């Protein structure tokens, strides 16, 4: 099995998949902590469906590179969702649900009517479940992913204190002069970027797992924001790497395998927490 893995690592597309997989896992887990604590766990799911709809529009328009339009539409929707949530004319979860199913339906409808490719079910399957799309990245897509991930990581590190303040108590943050609206907006935009990137890794239906599982697992064992964030990042990268390697060697679907590993890690952390609270571990 090791020989086979070494043989497969000789292919450039496998190395691209590992680089992109690690970067996406790292970025999504960092944002995941804030999103889970702010009770925005489901926003990732909603935005990923928006990204699916946007990708369908780009396909119908026969755009050679679908990412810029997908990114733009997803970011706009992320900002709109956030604003709707604050003004509360339409409650946050209702807005997410509406946008989520609406974008999914419109996306599929457009793809069906205009049939951008010969293999519609294949295109839809690839977009929704990732399929093997992480193994079919071009060099350009890898560079774009590296740049966007670096931007997200830099923003997270530079704005760590502000994001921390906004995550726990927006009112207190506002009272101390932090513009909660602006930082919420930045968080939403960073989430949109990661979701568009993560569609290649796990597909739009499974993105939420990449965002919430590492954070939830880390929260089972650690208590402070910093330790949860660090644990979540490390765990997410390990799970993504493990999932990718298992998938490459055993030929299972990449996205589902990564999510299964994340789920197993959550189970282990939950067990650890139970044993700890039960007094079996000191």
């Amino acid at each position: 099995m090791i020989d086979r893995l070494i043989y497969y690592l000789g292919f450039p597309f496998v190395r691209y998949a590992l680089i992109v997989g690690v970067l996406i896992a790292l970025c999504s887990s960092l944002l995941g902590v804030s999103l889970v604590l702010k009770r925005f766990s489901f926003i990732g799911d909603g935005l990923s469906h928006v990204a699916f709809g946007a990708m369908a529009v780009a396909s119908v328009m026969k755009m050679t590179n679908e990412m810029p339009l997908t990114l733009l539409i997803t970011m706009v929707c992320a900002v709109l969702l956030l604003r709707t949530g604050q003004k509360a004319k339409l409650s946050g979860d209702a807005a997410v649900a509406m946008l989520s199913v609406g974008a999914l339906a419109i996306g599929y409808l457009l793809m069906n009517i205009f049939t951008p490719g010969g293999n519609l079910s294949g295109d839809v399957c690839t977009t929704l479940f990732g399929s093997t799309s992480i193994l079919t990245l071009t060099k350009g897509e890898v560079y774009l992913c590296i740049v966007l991930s670096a931007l997200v990581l830099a923003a997270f590190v530079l704005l760590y204190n502000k994001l921390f303040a906004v995550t726990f108590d927006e009112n207190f943050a506002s009272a101390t002069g932090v513009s909660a609206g602006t930082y919420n907006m930045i968080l939403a935009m960073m989430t949109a970027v990661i979701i568009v990137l993560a569609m290649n890794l796990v597909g739009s239906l499974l993105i939420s797992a990449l965002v919430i599982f590492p954070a939830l697992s880390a929260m089972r064992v650690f208590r402070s924001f910093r330790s949860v964030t660090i644990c979540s990042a490390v765990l997410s990268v390990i799970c993504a790497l493990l999932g990718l390697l298992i998938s490459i060697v055993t030929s299972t679907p990449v996205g589902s395998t990564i999510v299964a590993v994340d789920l197993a890690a959550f189970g282990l952390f939950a067990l650890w927490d139970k044993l700890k609270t039960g007094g079996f571990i000191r």
Partner: protein
Amino acid sequence: MKRTIVLALTLCVLLLTACGSGETAASKASSTNTPTVADVLNAENAKPEEKTGLTADQLPEASADDDVDLDLTQMNANMVYAEVNNIMVSPEDYVGKTVRMGGPCYSVYVDETKQTYYAVIIQDATACCSQGLEYVLADDSLYPKDDTEVVVTGTFETYEELGALYCHLVDATIARG
């Protein structure tokens, strides 16, 4: 029968899917005329003699040949799918290389060129996406029946037809899969 129609339709789409750099095979397909089920049925009915071929038992045994640059039969489904996608996206990197591939083979007659094309279908692990690679045998008498599992070894080449770039393995040899 339904399965045959679906497979024939898939093959038509795959054969009409040109390869080229900077654009995936799937996105190129959007610029071609995708045949309808009726087109495929007409083609099948019009050329019944093209559907004859050798059974798996009549094909030669696969021999161990190390002189292969890219052996797709040694890879698992995910890797084969990714590598074939790579071939479709950057065919220029593979021209002149000896490639070996395995899987079910299918044929389709295309009216515009008045030719029958043969391809091996490669499916990914989720079985929702499939790609095919066309081959031209050195020995015309060895073309197999549709749905026969085969191993084909040939030299990778590109060619232009009806204004699009296509890929195929030429001077190919065939063995039972």
